[in-house]
């Protein structure tokens, strides 16, 4: 379903706000399911995203596992002598963490589904100063640049006969530490080039800039806005009544 970028931004804000405000697993699970449903209705490639982010998903599971071991409370499920290894509270925290990250990923998928600079244009149309709107766009632009910088340095090390894959984990972490500083400095140099290219093309020439893309809210967009806001408000009221909200 093709929606105006402002509507997609609104849905992202609503979903992520609920992920922050919902207090326990049951309430979070409903938000998780709703976020997944939104992605399915919008025909977004969830499986493709899971494949692309598999390393990150493993990291989330690893953090959840560590969290389940470190948070103590509730009933002890596994213990060795007097040390409580796994408790119900620990497992609860881990599941909540996984659900929250899942909701954020579903919301991120909505943002990633935009065509070109649509989201930036949406932010501009919502009245955000263009310096800030472009800042967010450029930040995303730099993620692959950083990854490329890092990979090229890894390749340079491999060319010198250092096989990082075969190294013990401790040494590997040390090597990654050495690589991060030059990768960041490479990014800074590239960011300067990019800033010059932007300045040379009149960035900042006027307080307001015009837009090639015409953004108009259609009847479908308005229907989605009303339904999204009503559902979110209803769910917040439900959580408030039944104590599912984090006290602010």
């Amino acid at each position: 379903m093709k929606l105006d970028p402002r509507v997609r931004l609104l849905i992202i804000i609503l979903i992520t706000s609920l992920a922050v405000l919902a207090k326990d697993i049951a309430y979070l699970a409903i938000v998780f399911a709703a976020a997944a449903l939104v992605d399915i209705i919008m025909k977004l490639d969830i499986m493709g995203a899971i494949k692309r982010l598999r390393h990150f998903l493993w990291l989330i599971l690893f953090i959840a596992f560590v969290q389940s071991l470190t948070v103590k409370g509730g009933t002890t499920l596994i213990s060795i002598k007097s040390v409580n290894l796994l408790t119900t509270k620990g497992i609860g925290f881990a599941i909540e963490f996984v659900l929250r990250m899942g909701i954020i990923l579903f919301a991120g998928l909505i943002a990633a589904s935009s065509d070109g600079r649509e989201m930036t244009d949406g932010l501009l149309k919502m009245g955000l100063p263009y310096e800030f709107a472009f800042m967010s766009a450029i930040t995303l632009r730099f993620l692959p640049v950083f990854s490329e910088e890092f990979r090229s340095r890894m390749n340079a090390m491999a060319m010198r006969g250092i096989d990082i894959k075969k190294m013990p984990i401790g040494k590997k972490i040390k090597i990654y530490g050495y690589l991060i500083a030059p990768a960041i400095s490479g990014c800074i140099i590239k960011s300067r080039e990019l800033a010059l290219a932007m300045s040379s093309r009149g960035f900042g020439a006027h307080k307001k800039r015009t837009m090639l893309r015409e953004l108009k809210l259609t009847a479908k967009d308005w229907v989605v806005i009303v339904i999204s806001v009503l559902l979110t408000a209803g769910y917040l009221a439900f959580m408030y009544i039944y104590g599912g909200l984090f006290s602010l």
Partner: protein
Amino acid sequence: MRLTAKNLSLSFGGQVIFKNLSFSAESGEILAIKGPNGSGKSSLCLCLAGLMEEGDETAVSGEVYYGGKALPEMGIAERCACVGIVFQNPDMQLFSPLVTEELAFAPENLALPRDEIKARIEEAAGICGIKHLLGAKTNRLSGGEKQLVAIASTLTMKPKFLIADEITSRIDTDKKDIVRNILINFAKEGGGVIMVSHNPKDLEIAHRVIELKRGKDYEDRSK
């Protein structure tokens, strides 16, 4: 319009890169700048484009005029109407996901109306032969195509002078010829070109060549 550089000097960390550089270039002219690495060619381009900034280590002096008006007296929009610059690395000049958006970036900054933006995109894409790429994603383009998009993006500002900083150095041979033709046609239609290059084939299209010599005098010779 005439570009005039008067007594331009640049030093990094106390080391003189070039000093008292004075020259001028006319509309319709292709002026080439060559010199060894570190002779300040790219920095000179930034000075001419009004983008060179003084820093703790960098000292710049001298003036650049376009049509008798000094660069610092111009606003950004006025500067863009006078001079556009294309850099060496095509990868770091494009920041929009789509080619059309990249080409719209400068006219949007200049707050031009939507119809004018569309017209400028069409015109610049036609000049650079990239109309077929307008719907493409910028990260899927080859190096040569990216450079053509960068040139087209600069041309959407309709500058009187185009500064080309080694723009053929990272692209393949057939695209180099296309780029040279774009520069030749730009000059034929009344624009001025300042071109930095080491490539003898690039220098062949220049009417004049200035050779920078690190820290020493420069040489201005007509062909």
